[in-house]
């Protein structure tokens, strides 16, 4: 029981990170119908940006850690958002009216470009960061087994919760969110109402990248090691989460992220940690076969 509870906490933490990345996949799919395979690498780039900015702030003499971390988060969000914007502008917008596979191919190209760019600029070796946020709370103790939740885990879960609430509000209640959803459903009609569709699509990439950068920042602090390849695995898992939740559905992406995080954690805990990726990807295969529209996805048929 204690072991289960501990794994549950770990799983929710991991799921939070996947969920934040998955939103980027699902939003982009919703609005332009393509899988942005470079999104995982945007996440990877953001974790590097976080590390670099953090070290830069320290060397500038900023030693008050909470302030430093807050600044790192904000700066990283801005720079990563600029990456997201640039990727869309360079690789996808020129192909907007091209055949369907074209942006998918450039997305994979963009993913390779970002990976190699970071590999060359930062080296292929892993970059460690000593734990910055320490301390934890003991929730229960039984037969010598301790259930703990660390401060880092609390921060990850709370930040994710706040961001997702804010983000849901943005999408469902604001004019910006309405025009975003309008572009998802009918771009021509949105333009007929005066919505600047290109700008809305850019904004979707910017928001997706900003959320991924929060994930990248927390990944760096939580695991303490990053390399140029983390974006691939995390990206594919977040993509799995988006498909599991129903691609195009925002609550689906959040729920899917959580479930994938839990599946992976419990699989590692009770079966085999070596095969944890197999568990996540087997889920993808099973969902695609038996439930192609996902848990909260909308069926393709619509009343005319």
């Amino acid at each position, binding site marked *: 029981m204690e072991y289960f509870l501990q794994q549950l906490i770990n799983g929710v933490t991991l799921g939070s990170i996947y969920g934040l990345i998955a939103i980027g996949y699902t939003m982009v799919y919703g609005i332009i119908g393509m899988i942005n395979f470079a999104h995982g690498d945007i996440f990877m780039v953001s974790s590097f940006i976080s590390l670099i900015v953090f070290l830069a702030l320290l060397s500038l003499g900023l030693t008050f850690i909470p302030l430093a971390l807050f600044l790192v988060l904000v700066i990283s969000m801005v720079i990563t958002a600029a990456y997201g914007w640039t990727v869309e502008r360079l690789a996808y917008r020129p192909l907007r009216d091209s055949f369907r596979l074209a942006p998918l191919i450039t997305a994979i190209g963009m993913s390779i470009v970002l990976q190699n760019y970071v590999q060359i600029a930062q080296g292929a070796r892993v970059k460690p960061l000593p734990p910055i946020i320490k301390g934890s709370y003991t929730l229960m103790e039984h037969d010598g087994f301790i259930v703990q939740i660390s401060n880092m885990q609390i921060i990850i879960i709370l930040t994710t919760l706040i961001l997702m609430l804010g983000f849901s509000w943005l999408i469902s209640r604001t*004019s910006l969110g*309405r*025009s975003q*959803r*309008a572009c998802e*459903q*009918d771009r*021509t*009609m*949105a*333009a*007929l*109402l*005066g*919505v*600047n*569709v290109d700008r809305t699509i850019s904004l979707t990439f910017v928001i997706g990248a900003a959320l991924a950068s929060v994930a990248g920042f927390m990944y760096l602090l939580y695991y303490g090691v990053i390399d140029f390849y983390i974006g691939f695995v995390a990206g594919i898992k977040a993509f799995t989460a988006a498909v599991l939740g129903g691609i195009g559905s925002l609550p689906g992406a959040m729920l899917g992220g959580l479930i994938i995080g839990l599946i992976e954690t419990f699989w590692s805990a009770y079966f085999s940690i070596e095969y944890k990726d197999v568990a996540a990807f087997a889920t993808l295969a099973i969902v695609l076969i038996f439930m192609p529209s996902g848990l909260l996805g*909308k069926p393709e048929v*619509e*009343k005319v």
Partner: protein
Amino acid sequence: MSQPNPLLETPEPLLEIKGVNSFYGKIQALRTVDLSVHRGEIVTLIGANGAGKSTLMMTICGKPPCRDGTIRFDGRDIHALPMHEIMRLGIAQSPEGRRIFGRMSVLENLQLGAFLTDPHHFEEDLERVLQLFPVLKERSGQRGGTLSGGEQQMLAIARALMGRPKLLLLDEPSLGLAPLIVKQIFSILKELNRTQNLTVFLVEQNAWHALHLAHRAYVMVNGRITLSGKGSELLEKEEVRAAYLEGGQ
């Protein structure tokens, strides 16, 4: 407000289309179309299915772009502008097929209609539009996709009106609707034109209703304007009667 005579020719029309050619891929849909709509007028364009009427509507709004010729609106050349900037100048369209946002509520559809206007007079505009189409008030929380065809058509027009347009473009508002509802929609248009001096450009297959409503009318055949004149005059013309009215009423 004093009523200007809609037939009185003002120096510059609100919308002026000159020599416009437009293509869908390689197919030429419009052939040197000339057409004008003056302030306060209701102008209709009638023609058979596939004549190019909807293409003209969309060409005015910028997509497909016109390849030759000029389109002027409110004293500006608009044919080189992107769609969202054209609409910003005060044009609203209720397009072919209605294009309601089916997964959004009726209220959200109307909010999107007001995307370009000052949010301060949103409540006032909403009140006005719901008074015209009371059925939308009852349905305001419902998803657009669950409305009946007639309700969707009313929503499409209401959404267009929410933008406070100088020019309202309506593409086949009568398509697929019961005669009673068609009558209702047309009388609302007439009322809006009379009381608020709303300028309307209407594309219709339902020629009888459209010609009765409109001050002036154009007939389009295979992407060309073949006839024009007062609505009441065209109603009398033998070729119009034969092609568009026989069996209609």
